[in-house]
């Protein structure tokens, strides 16, 4: 192997991704974004003058597959860089491997993974912020403070799963800080079919605020039940995964109006970062064939960005040495399609950018309206605000 031959080899980025099983919807969309990044990078001449290539395996949404996949990537495929699969459950099992080899590990949407491992070279692209559990719902509760009259009671409901339970912990902490009385605090199993009994029980406690931490199918179920039953609250929503997906938005249509929910990117003027529209255009051109979210506002830009950060670090340091890369990522700000990204000491975003958005003015079920500014206005954080809160959620 002469140096010439070596230089001609592509730089290989390895990861496991959920292409089947429960997380496949997200995993496949992420993969699409990453492929676009690889294409973009190669069109621009690659990294260090070499092509980049993605090496990935299906982790089947099953954590048990993760350790094997990453050791294979590192010790047999000899990839140069590694990034994570989608979600906390599939990031954590890879951590010890990264730690034992001192590798830079870019995470894709894991919540507070590093709290336990405290690993210096872990970076999380999800803009949760330095204190992920709390930052997650900061917007919801900050806004609640501003309502007049001030809300007194809170109902919390969420799925029996990793993300939602963590989000609920944060919500409880905020409630305590704001002296809100928690009148309902329950979880439900992921296999629940009908949510009306749950929503009715919430309704019976007459809460001012309803904080929901849910996954896509339950988000739809809870929302529909809330509409059918006529749930009354001043604010409703918060941590509902799935309402960000176009496929779900277009089926719920006007039912979404008034919901406040977290989000990471929406087509509001305040969030018009350089490159994002180009990226989305490329993504949307191929999303249909791949059978993933047609608009791709939620996860794909971040999936693009986490490899983008890595790529920029490699270019800037002209190195594939993970020590050097790690130090560089810690010390610098990155320009990505999701805006400027800066990582704190624990590898989370230095400042939170969990947006709180509200669905407004949804008239029908067309896809097009969700691409227009104003359909989801940003209410929090201050820096990105693009509209004002409509409340109460329902009379």
């Amino acid at each position: 192997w002469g140096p010439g031959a070596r230089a001609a080899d592509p730089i290989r980025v390895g990861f496991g991704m959920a292409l089947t099983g429960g997380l496949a919807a997200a995993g496949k969309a992420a993969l699409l974004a990453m492929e676009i990044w690889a294409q973009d990078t190669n069109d621009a001449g690659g990294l260090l003058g070499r092509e980049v290539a993605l090496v990935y395996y299906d982790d089947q949404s099953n954590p048990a597959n993760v350790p094997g996949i990453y050791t294979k990537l590192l010790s047999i495929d000899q990839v140069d860089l590694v990034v994570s699969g989608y979600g906390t459950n599939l990031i954590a099992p890879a951590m010890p491997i990264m730690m034992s080899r001192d590798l830079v590990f870019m995470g894709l949407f894991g919540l507070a993974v590093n709290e336990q491992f405290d690993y210096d070279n872990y970076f999380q692209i999800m803009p949760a912020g330095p204190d992920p559990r709390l930052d997650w719902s900061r917007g919801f509760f900050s806004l609640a403070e501003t309502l007049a009259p001030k809300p007194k009671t809170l109902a919390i409901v969420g799925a029996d799963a990793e993300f939602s339970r963590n989000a609920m912990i944060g919500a409880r902490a905020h409630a305590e800080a704001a002296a809100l009385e928690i009148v309902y605090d329950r979880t439900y199993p992921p296999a629940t079919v009908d949510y009306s009994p749950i929503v009715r029980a919430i309704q019976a406690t007459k809460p001012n605020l309803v904080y929901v931490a849910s996954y896509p199918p339950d988000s739809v179920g809870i929302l529909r039940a809330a509409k059918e039953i006529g749930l009354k609250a001043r604010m409703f929503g918060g941590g509902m995964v799935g309402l960000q997906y176009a496929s779900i938005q277009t089926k719920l249509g006007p039912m979404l109006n008034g919901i406040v929910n977290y989000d990471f990117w929406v087509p509001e003027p305040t969030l018009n970062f350089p490159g994002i529209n180009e990226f989305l255009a490329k993504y949307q051109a191929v999303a249909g064939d791949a059978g993933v979210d047609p608009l791709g506002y939620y996860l794909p830009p971040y999936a693009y960005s986490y490899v983008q950060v890595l790529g920029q670090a490699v270019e800037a340091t002209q190195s594939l040495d993970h020590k050097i890369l790690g130090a560089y990522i810690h010390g610098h700000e990155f320009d990505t399609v999701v805006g400027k990204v800066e990582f704190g000491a624990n590898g989370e975003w230095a400042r939170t950018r969990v947006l709180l958005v509200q669905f407004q003015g949804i008239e029908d079920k067309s896809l097009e309206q969700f691409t227009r500014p104003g359909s989801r206005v940003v209410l929090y954080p201050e820096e990105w605000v693009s509209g004002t809160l409509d409340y109460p959620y329902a009379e």
Partner: protein
Amino acid sequence: MAAKAFWPVAIALILAAIGLTQLLANEYYFFAAYVVLQFVVLATAWNILGGYTGYVNFGSAAFFAVGAYCSVALIKAFDAPLPVLILAAGAVSGLIGLATGYLTLRLKGVYFAIATLALAIVLETFITNWDFVGGASGTFVLRPKEVWLFDSYIKFLFAVMMVLAVAAVGIARSIERSKLGRGLAAIRDDEVAAECMGVPTLRLKLLATTISGTLMGVAGAPYPYYVTYLDPLSAFNLSYAVNAIAMPMIGGTMTWLGPVVGALLLGTAQQVATVTISSELNLLIVGVMLVGFVILAPEGIVGLVRKTIRRGRRR
């Protein structure tokens, strides 16, 4: 395999496994082999109840998960060492096996299978709501930094699993050849007749559920260290229940060798598929393998091979 050769071969296997950890640097093989061996234990355990006794356990994942969560609890509470974890997990899962037996062994056939399924769901709900072991949000388990003799923890886990697999297979094999094995087979064939021939059916069935449960728990005990992050959804994953049934079925349920062959074959195929076919097609391969093998080798691979040999001899 000749009757006498088993234990020497078994010990040689363990020694070879330990030797391998010292020689082979590449960790990947140990990760993959760990999973395959874990399935050898699981499939063998299932077969003691399912194959020998004729009681189909749909809830293997629950026994496995109880073993894993037992470890988590002990690690959290006492930071207990691995041998203790294995023993404790075996004991707890064994007890649950015994309790399952008491609760459900009046049930026959499908009713028993469904009862184990129900039990698995009840257990999962309890773990989901037990915050000490992480509850639904899951829990992180950090591996010990160093282990004696091994230069990486996964090699150690691999060696441990090798010992467990050999032990499990050894247990299954001696059951099969003993009075107990014949009693279990009699239960499988006709329980009323077995009882009338002096076989203490309830006691033997309880023994079978306990041994089977113990071994499944043992298989799950090191798992938290393997994945380092455990949540109920993955610990109770359907794939354990599926594999525990499918592997003996593919290999053959009548002998101890069947589950071993099935686990090695299907387990390895799954590992290979995971890292070679980077798409949904790996699931398809598992599906097609399952369908293909049960159609083509109705008595399992072991049965097929035996039949072929017998036919060859006759000629």
